[in-house]
């Protein structure tokens, strides 16, 4: 399927300068935009060049072109987002003039209360941390991806570390949760079952009935 894709693109642009670089025939600007769309944190020039497989100077030049493009100095209209270099890295930001639109949307959007599903997921993470998303999902018997995202955004849980083997991220609760609960440490969480204390592992086997 991938081969097919590349083949199609190759046909579309037969007169590329270097015939041997089939894989990178998609314009550099597009490749950079693809990476920019998915990154969470600003990405440095060198890392970006590595990601798109092009030399640093070309990437720098294209980034500058994109900045102009998004600001409306290219062929198309100005964009609602802009490309900025902040703290040594590049990233897409909402254009500042539009912050009010975003603020109004977020203010009206986020529920002020956690849903029952979010609270239960939070409880599972609190008592079983460190715990991965799939472990939580198997306990809750539902998909918890969006709930975990909410809890992260609310600062109630945090990413602790990645499992050395699987790379799965382990989550734990934050001090913010302790403050909400009015306790000083996790030790003060009320014990919920003797089974939980001794063998967290046995738990997955459905020992509690």
């Amino acid at each position, binding site marked *: *399927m991938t081969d097919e894709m590349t083949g199609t693109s190759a046909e579309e642009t037969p007169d590329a300068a270097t015939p041997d670089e089939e894989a990178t025939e998609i314009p550099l600007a597009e490749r950079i935009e*693809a990476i920019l*769309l*998915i*990154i*969470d944190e600003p990405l440095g020039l060198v890392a970006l060049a590595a990601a798109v497989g092009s030399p640093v100077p070309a990437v720098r030049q294209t980034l500058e072109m994109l900045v102009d493009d998004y600001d409306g100095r290219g062929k198309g209209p100005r964009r609602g987002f802009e490309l900025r270099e902040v703290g040594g890295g590049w990233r897409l*930001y*909402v254009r500042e003039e539009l*912050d009010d639109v*975003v*603020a109004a949307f*977020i*203010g009206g959007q*986020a*529920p*002020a*209360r*956690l849903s029952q599903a979010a*609270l*239960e*997921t939070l*409880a*599972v993470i*609190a*008592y079983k941390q460190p715990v991965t998303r799939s472990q939580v999902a198997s*306990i*809750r*018997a539902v998909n918890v991806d969006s709930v975990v*995202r909410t809890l*992260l*955004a*609310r600062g109630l849980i945090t990413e602790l570390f990645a499992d050395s083997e699987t790379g799965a991220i382990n989550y734990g609760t934050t001090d913010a949760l302790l403050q*909400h*609960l*009015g*306790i000083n440490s996790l030790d*003060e*969480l*009320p*014990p*919920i*079952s003797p089974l*939980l204390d001794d063998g967290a592992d046995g*738990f997955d086997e*459905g020992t*509690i*009935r």
Partner: protein
Amino acid sequence: MAPSPSEGPVDATLEESAGEAASAESAGFRVSLSNFDGPFDLLLNLISKHEMDITEVSLSAVTNEFIAYLGQLEDDEELDQASEFLVVAATLLDMKVAGLLPQGELVDAEAVALLEARDLLFARLLQYRAFKEVSAWFSRCLQREDRRHVRAVRLDEKHRRQTPELVWSLTADDFAALALLAFAPKEIPHVGLDHLHAPLVSIREQAAIVVTLLRGTESLSFRELVAGVAEPGIVVARFISVLELYRHAALSFEQLEPLGELTLRWAADSWSDETLATLGADYDR
């Protein structure tokens, strides 16, 4: 935009990307019977198009071949293919039972009901095949989308601060109670298998009893034939053996009105116990 599961495209892409299991089956599992030799899928096609008589197909032979075939497969494939085979085999068995039921010239309510039942069985087989075919579309779409990347970036710190303050009303004890609730195993009811452990009944043994009883007397009603039998399985087995014996022209029967008394008469000119030995072989496990 959405590709339609019409024959061509689905089959084509099935081979390439989607159901390895499905294509492996059509390519892999072949049936060799006395009256048919070819892929399992083709057999199903012929039967569902009425181009082959289901009653002529030995299910036990098909099953034997399938089990032998499973032995050569990897574990994962095996599970998928085994469950699929069970679906189809169960449907074929139903169809076969319906196919074996005698169809007289009389068009009475029962005959019509029987025809409807047969149609329903065909419909069920077709339905299963339709879902199986469309599952290839699901597989293709799921795999295509799995490769896609969507923008799902955490909010900027700047915007995060604008989210409304969280309303928190739980005490630590409330929270613990919630945790207990969350950890409570979810009740997932399951279908019990107890009913599968009914004692096995041999059609051949029951046929032997039927033959013995019938040959010793001029005529016998089915009610008399099963008098004193408490187990439903045995009643069913005796009924099936009556049908099988009818196929072998070993008996005749008479029923004056629908649901009325079924009178059976021994009608075989020449009967050997060898016939009895092969009787009901299709039902063997």
